[in-house]
C-alpha cells in the first residue's frame, strides 16, 4: 500500500515537470515530435529507475552521517554527505553512457533522432533531482526508492508525451506571432501544471479524517510549502 501510494504520488502529485520543474530544458527542446518525445521519455524512466536505487545504496552505506559504521566503531561519526553531489553525478554519468551504448546497438534510428539529447540526459535535472529528492525526503527502503525512481520517470514521460501531442496539433493553429514556439509552450505547460494540481486531493480523497496529509498534499513542493507558511504568518 505504501509502495502504491508513493508510486501514484510521484507520478501525479509530485510530478517532476509540473510540480518541481525538473528536466525542463530537454522537455522543451525535444517535445516537437511525439516519436522522439517517447524515446527520450523511455530513456529517462530507465535511467531514473536504475540511478535512484543505486544512489539510495550509496547514500545509505557511504554518505549519510554515521553511514560508515559498518566499517567499524571508529568510523561511526563520519559525515560524508557533502560528497553526495559528486557521487550521485558519477553514478548518473556512468548509467547514461550505458544507456547510450544500448540504444545505439538496438535502435540506431532512435539514437540518431535523439542526437545530442541522449548524452544530455546526464545533465537532465530530473535525473539528479530524483536522487537529491530521494535523499532530502529520506525515503526509508530500497524498494520505495525504486518505486520512487520509476514513478518519477513515468511522471516525466507523461508530461513530455502530452506536450508533444499538443505541440503537433498547435502547428495548425493561429497563434500570435510573438508567442509562437517557446512562449506558447511555456503557457500551455503552466495550464497543464494547474490541471495537475487538481490531483492533489487524490490520495486523501478530501477525507476529513486525514487533515494532516491533506496539508502536505495541497501544496506541491517543499519550497512552496515554506513560502506559503511564511505568507500565512505574514497574513495572520
Amino acid at each position: 500500500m505504501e509502495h502504491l501510494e508513493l508510486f501514484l504520488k510521484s507520478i501525479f502529485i509530485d510530478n517532476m515537470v509540473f510540480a518541481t520543474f525538473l528536466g525542463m530544458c530537454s522537455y522543451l527542446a525535444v517535445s516537437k515530435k511525439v516519436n522522439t518525445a517517447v524515446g527520450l521519455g523511455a530513456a529517462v524512466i530507465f535511467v531514473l529507475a536504475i540511478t535512484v536505487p543505486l544512489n539510495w545504496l550509496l547514500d545509505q552505506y557511504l554518505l549519510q552521517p554515521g553511514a560508515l559504521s559498518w566499517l567499524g566503531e571508529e568510523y561511526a561519526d563520519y559525515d560524508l554527505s557533502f560528497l553526495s553531489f559528486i557521487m550521485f553525478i558519477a553514478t548518473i554519468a556512468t548509467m547514461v553512457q550505458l544507456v547510450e551504448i544500448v540504444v545505439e546497438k538496438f535502435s540506431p534510428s532512435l539514437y540518431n533522432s535523439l542526437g545530442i539529447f541522449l548524452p544530455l540526459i546526464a545533465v537532465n535535472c530530473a535525473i539528479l533531482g530524483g536522487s537529491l529528492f530521494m535523499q532530502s525526503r529520506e525515503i526509508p527502503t530500497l524498494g520505495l526508492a525504486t518505486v520512487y525512481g520509476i514513478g518519477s520517470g513515468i511522471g516525466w514521460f507523461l508530461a513530455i508525451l502530452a506536450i508533444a501531442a499538443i505541440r503537433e496539433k498547435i502547428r495548425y493553429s493561429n497563434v500570435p506571432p510573438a508567442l509562437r514556439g517557446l512562449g506558447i509552450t511555456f503557457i500551455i505547460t503552466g495550464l497543464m501544471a494547474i490541471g495537475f494540481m487538481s490531483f492533489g486531493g487524490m490520495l486523501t480523497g478530501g477525507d476529513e479524517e486525514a487533515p494532516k496529509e491533506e496539508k502536505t498534499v495541497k501544496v506541491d513542493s517543499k519550497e512552496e510549502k515554506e513560502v506559503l507558511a511564511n505568507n500565512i504568518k505574514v497574513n495572520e
Partner: protein
Amino acid sequence: MGLLSKKDAKLITDPLADNNPITIQVLGICSALAITAELKASIVMAISVMAVLAIGNVVISLMRNIIPSKIRIIVQLVVVAALVIIVDQVLKAFAYELSKTLSVFVGLIITNCIIMGRFEAFALANKPWRSFLDGLGNAAGYGLILIIVGFFRELLGSGTLLGYPVLGNPIPGELTGLYKYGYENNGFMLLSPMALIVVGIIIWVQRSKNKALVEDN
C-alpha cells in the same frame, strides 16, 4: 567600456537580451522557475550560478587542450560538481536559512544546462579571459530573467519585496496602503504554474519587441 574591446563587450551584452540563455537558448529553465517565488532566493541563485559559470568556464578553458574529447562530459561534470560543492558549503556557512529554502536546487546547479552548454559551446574553444567574460555575460542574462520573475512573483504573490511589505499591511483590521482599497494578494503567484506563465509572458514581450526572434509554431 574602456577596458574591453568591442568584441569582448559583446560577449557580455549579447546574452542579456538577444541571445538570452533562458528565453532564446532554452537553457537552465528548471531553476529559473522553481526558486523564483521570492526575490531574495532568485538573487542568491543568480550570484551562485554566476560564480560557478565564470570560474568553471576559466577552468575548462585552461584545460581545453588536454581534455580528451571522449571523456569531456565527465571532466566537465567533475569541475562543476566541485565548484557547486564549494558554493553549497559557503551558503550553508553564511546563509543557512536561505540554503534551506533553496534545498536541492543548489545541487541542481550541476545539471543546469547553461553551464554544460557554455562549456561545450564556448570554453572548449576559447581563451580563458574571453571564456570568463562569456561566463559572466550568460550568467547575468540568466540572473536578469530570474530577478524579473522573482520580482513579479513576490510582489503580486505576497505583496513584499526582499521580505519588506511594500504594498501596505495586509492584516485584517489594520489594513494600510493598497489593501485598504480592496486589493488582495494573489497567492496563486506563489504556486509553480504561475512561474511558467510569467516566463511565457516575458518571452512574448521580448519577441514582440524584436521580430527577428519570432519562431515557427
